[in-house]
């Protein structure tokens, strides 16, 4: 298929509206086509910047109270349906995040951008039909696979005696910077470990554990490399895996 036809799908791709088969076909094309990949990246950036810019206004507490009072404990819906409140908790959380983020400065904005990009990469890898390009639980297979694909090398820890399993790895990009994404498994959950050179978008971020969106993220630098450990597992698991990686790095 010509690039032109792929590009027609890019908006739907970045909006998450392609079905999984289409999306993975397009992902495969993006891995091999720098022009389309740059185009996709630009669209993602535009989305991000609108998202950041759009979260702008906070209502007064007074208005909230006034409205809450007028609707307090009014009708219960009397139909005998059972209905899952699926989106509400996520959105309540999101709005809490928005309220907190409204006054954040440029640095925080960058940090949020990095974290949400990493969260997307994590989710996209797990949602894709091929989460990893090198499938192996053996770090001695995974590590050399990256040689020549990314401009640096790294060490991976021995996992024996821990609860973690290595599933494999893939090349990934954070704001055009190539890096390694490794996927680990722990008790039915997957954790992504991202390793980049410590420059560009991810550089200089404060080290530590954060909880953006519904993920825990731990980040640090070591020997000129920037590590991010991202997953929807508890902070203890993120810390434990981070510790193993630090020990090996």
């Amino acid at each position, binding site marked *: 298929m010509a690039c032109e036809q792929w590009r027609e799908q890019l908006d739907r791709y970045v909006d998450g509206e392609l079905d999984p088969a289409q999306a993975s076909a397009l992902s495969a094309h993006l891995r091999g086509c720098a022009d389309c990949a740059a185009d996709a990246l630009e669209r993602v950036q535009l989305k991000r*910047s609108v998202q950041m810019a759009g979260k702008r206004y906070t209502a007064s507490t007074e208005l909230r109270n006034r409205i809450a009072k007028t609707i307090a404990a009014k009708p219960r819906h009397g139909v005998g349906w059972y209905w899952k409140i699926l989106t509400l908790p996520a959105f309540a959380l999101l709005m809490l995040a928005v309220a907190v983020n409204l006054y954040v400065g440029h640095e925080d904005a960058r940090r949020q951008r990095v974290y949400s990009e990493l969260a997307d990469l994590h989710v996209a890898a797990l949602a894709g039909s091929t989460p990893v390009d090198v499938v192996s639980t053996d770090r001695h297979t995974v590590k050399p696979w990256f040689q020549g694909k990314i401009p640096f090398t790294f060490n991976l820890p021995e996992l024996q005696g821990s609860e973690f399993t290595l599933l494999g790895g893939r090349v990934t990009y954070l704001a055009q910077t190539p890096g390694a994404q490794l996927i680990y498994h722990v008790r039915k959950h997957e954790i992504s470990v991202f390793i980049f050179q410590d420059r560009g978008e991810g550089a200089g971020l404060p080290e530590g554990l954060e909880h953006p969106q519904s993920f825990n993220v731990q980040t640090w630098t070591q020997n000129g490399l920037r590590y991010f450990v991202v997953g929807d597992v508890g902070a203890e698991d993120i810390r434990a895996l981070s510790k193993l990686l630090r020990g090996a790095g």
Partner: protein
Amino acid sequence: MKVPEKSVRDTTFEELAMPLFDQLYNFARWLTQDTAEAEDLTQETYAKALRGFSSFQMGTNFRAWMYRILRNTFLTSRTGLKNTVAIDEDTDEALLPVENTTPESSLIQQASREMVQQALTDLPVHFREILLLCEVEEMSYQEIAETLGIPMGTVMSRLYRARKALRDLLRKKNEGVRHGV
């Protein structure tokens, strides 16, 4: 934070609607471009939704329903009427001409948050609202279609046009900055 799964009998309007308060207000403020009007609009939306709640079809999308009420209330308000131009250009068949533009990654990276906010403000309201629903509210095309009462094909073509218009504005602003205007 997790709302337990409940039967609808136990679900009050308050429980469903209050978690949407901050985002509805933000959306109202973007539409009206005025604090007092946004407050009135938000309040009126809640009042209308409360009155109409018994007719709300459980199992359908509550969020889209709330946004639809807010938006329709806005469109029939004075400011809304002033802002509404005929939107006849985006029928589904006129879909997505792919342009041979080079990606403008650096342009967007350089655009500050303020610059993007100003550009959003400058956009016609039907472009502004669809971008907010898609990017800020992270609605699916289906939800946007329900909220705006337009077909899916129109969602896609309007989004495409809105993004193009936003890029054009950012490019202009960027040139303005570079030339010290």
